[in-house]
C-alpha cells in the first residue's frame, strides 16, 4: 500500500515539479516583469501598464506584429500545402524506401539552426549561389530574395519543411488506406475520397504540423536578423533586441507575453474548433 502510494506520488510529483520549475515559474517571472519598467538599464519595481500601452499604440510594434502574424500564417499554410503531397507520396509510393525517405527528412536537423541560416544566406545573398549564377549569366540579380521578407519566408519554409512533412507523414503512415477503398466502393471519386475521408482523418496530425511551424515562426528572431533586411524586422527579433542592445527588458517581457498569448489563442482556436472525434481521433477511447 505504502509502496503504491509512493510510486503514485513519484509519477505525479516529479513531472509536476518539473513543469512548475521550468515552465510556470519563468512564465510568472516574465508576466511580472512585463508590468514593471526599465530605466537606464535598471528595473524599476513599479506596477504599470505602460509597456502594453506602448505595444498597442506605437506604429513600429504594430507593424512588426502584423508582419509576424501574416508571415506565420503564410508560412504554415504554405508548409501544410507543400508537405501533404510530399508525405503522401512517401507513404503511398515509398515502398520499402519509406524509412530512408523519412530519415532523409531529418538530416537537416542534424546541423544547428544558425549554421543552416548562414548556408541559406550564402544561397540567397547578393553573391550567393542563385544571384551569383544569374550575374555570371549576365542577368540581373533577383532583388526580391536578397535581405527581404521573401528571403525570410524562404528560410522559414526551408527550416520547418522537414518538421511538417514528418508530422503529416506520421499521421498518414498510421492511416488505414483501406478506408479510402471503402469510400471508393461507396461511389466516391478521388476528390471526395480525399475531402470526406483522407483529409478529415488526418486533420489532427495536420494541425500539429501547422502549429509546429506557426509558433516558432510567430516568435522568430534569428531568421529576420540573418535574412530579413531593413524592412524585415519581425516581432520576435524586436523582442530579442529589447533584451539585448536596447536594454528595455520590461518591454521585451511584455512582447513575450503577447507572443505567448497569441500562440495559446491559435492553439485554442484550432483545438476547440475541431471536434476530435470527427477527425477519427482514437485517443478518447471507447465512450
Amino acid at each position, binding site marked *: 500500500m505504502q509502496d503504491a502510494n509512493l510510486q503514485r506520488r513519484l509519477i505525479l510529483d516529479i513531472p509536476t515539479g518539473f513543469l512548475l520549475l521550468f515552465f510556470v515559474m519563468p512564465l510568472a517571472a516574465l508576466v511580472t516583469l512585463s508590468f514593471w519598467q526599465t530605466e537606464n538599464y535598471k528595473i524599476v519595481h513599479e506596477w504599470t501598464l505602460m509597456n502594453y500601452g506602448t505595444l498597442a499604440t506605437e506604429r513600429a510594434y504594430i507593424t512588426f506584429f502584423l508582419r509576424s502574424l501574416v508571415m506565420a500564417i503564410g508560412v504554415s499554410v504554405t508548409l501544410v500545402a507543400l508537405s501533404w503531397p510530399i508525405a503522401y507520396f512517401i507513404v503511398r509510393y515509398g515502398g520499402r524506401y519509406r524509412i530512408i525517405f523519412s530519415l532523409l527528412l531529418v538530416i537537416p536537423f542534424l546541423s544547428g539552426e544558425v549554421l543552416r541560416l548562414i548556408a541559406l544566406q550564402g544561397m540567397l545573398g547578393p553573391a550567393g549561389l542563385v544571384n551569383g549564377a544569374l550575374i555570371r549569366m549576365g542577368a540581373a540579380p533577383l532583388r526580391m530574395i536578397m535581405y527581404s521578407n521573401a528571403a525570410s519566408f524562404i528560410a522559414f519554409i526551408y527550416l520547418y519543411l522537414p518538421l511538417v512533412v514528418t508530422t503529416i507523414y506520421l499521421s498518414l503512415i498510421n492511416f488505414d488506406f*483501406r478506408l479510402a477503398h471503402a*469510400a*471508393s*466502393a461507396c*461511389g466516391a471519386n478521388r476528390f471526395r475520397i480525399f475531402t470526406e475521408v483522407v483529409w478529415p482523418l488526418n486533420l489532427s496530425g495536420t494541425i500539429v504540423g501547422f502549429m509546429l511551424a506557426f509558433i516558432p515562426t510567430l516568435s522568430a528572431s534569428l531568421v529576420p536578423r540573418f535574412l530579413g533586411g531593413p524592412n524585415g524586422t519581425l516581432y520576435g527579433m524586436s523582442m530579442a533586441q529589447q533584451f539585448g542592445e536596447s536594454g528595455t527588458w520590461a518591454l521585451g517581457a511584455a512582447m513575450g507575453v503577447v507572443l505567448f498569448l497569441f500562440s495559446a489563442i491559435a492553439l485554442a482556436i484550432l483545438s476547440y474548433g475541431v471536434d476530435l472525434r470527427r477527425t477519427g481521433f482514437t485517443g478518447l477511447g*471507447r465512450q
Partner: protein
Amino acid sequence: MSNTSSYIRIDKVSRRYGAFKALDDVSLDISKEEFIAILGPSGSGKSTLLRLIAGLDRPTEGRIHFEGKDVTELAPHKRGIGMVFQEFLLFPHRTVRENLAFPLRMRNEAKAEIEERVEWVAGILSLSTMLDRYPSQLSGGQQQRVALGRGLVARPTLLLLDEPLANLDRELRQEMEIEIRRYQKQLGIPFIYVTHNQEEALSMSDRIAVINNGRLEALGERQAIYDHPQTPFVARFVGKSSKFQGVVQPDGATVRLARHDYEFALPPDKKFNPGDAVEIFVKNERFDISSKQDGGVGIPSTVVDVVLRGPFLEYVLETDRGDTVIAVKPKRNDPIPIRERVLLSWNPADCHIFKDGADDARR
C-alpha cells in the same frame, strides 16, 4: 463479350503476389438477378476475387466485363457497385447515420431520399436506436450490421458481400439471411456473397462457386454441388461427410474398404480399373444404420453418443477399428441406445468416389 446473357463475366482472371498465385485462372459468368455464393476455406482467394470485381485491385491477367463492357481498368466508383467489407471499414469519424448515408451522398441523392433510405435500412437492421453513435461505440455485431447497411442502402447494380454475417449470433444471422435474400429478389441485381460457411452458402444462393487455393474447384446449382461433387475437395468441403479409403476389386465392379470389412458395388457411372485406390466420401445424413441382429452387411460399430440437433439425431459411432463416424438421422422417439452394436452401410449411389490423390494430381 459475345455472351450477352451474362451480366458479369470474369474471364480467365489471375492475381499474383510475386510468385504466389492468390487467384489462378478463374472464369465465372454471372447473370442478372442471380445470387451466387463464393465458398472456400480461409486464404483461398475469396476476398481477392471480390476486390477485383469491385475494381479495388487489378488482375495480373484476364478481363472483367459488366454487361458486355470491359471494366478491367475502370475505377471502382464508376462501377455502380455496393460492397460490404469483411473488415467492416466503417468511417470512424462519422456517425452510424452518416456512414449509412455516405453511398447515397456520393450518388448525389436528394436529401429527403437519403433520409428515407437510411431510415429504411436502419429499420431492417435494427440500428434505429444507435444512428447517432460513432462506430467505436458499437459492438462487433452492430458494426457489422452498419457495414451491411452501407452496402445495401444505395440500390447498386451489383452487390458484393464479404462474409457479411460472420459476427452475428445465430438468430440474427438467420433473420439477416432471409432479409438479404428478399432484398436481392426485390432489387433484381446479382449478389456475390463470399462465405466460408457452407450452410449460409447452401441456404441463400442460387449457385455456388467453390474456390480452393485460388482456383475455381466447382461451379453449379447448389443442389448439384451438394449432391454431386466433382472433386474430392468439394466432397469434403460442402456438407458434412466422412471419408474412407478403398480399393477396386479385381472384378472392377466392387469396392472394398481398406480398413473395414465392407464391400459395396460401384455405381455404374463410375469407371475405375481393378486395383485402383479410391477415396470414398459419404454425407453424414446418407448413412444407413442397421441393427447387428438383422444380419445385414456393414461396418461393425458401436454407438458412443447420441446428440440431439433440433429435428435430427446425431449418432456418434465408433467402428471396431477405432474410427469415429457421425451419422445423422431424423429424430425418433426410440433412438438407438448408447453402446448398441450396429452395422454402418450406405447406398452405393449416395456416396462419392474419387481416385486416390485426385486432388494432388490437379495441382
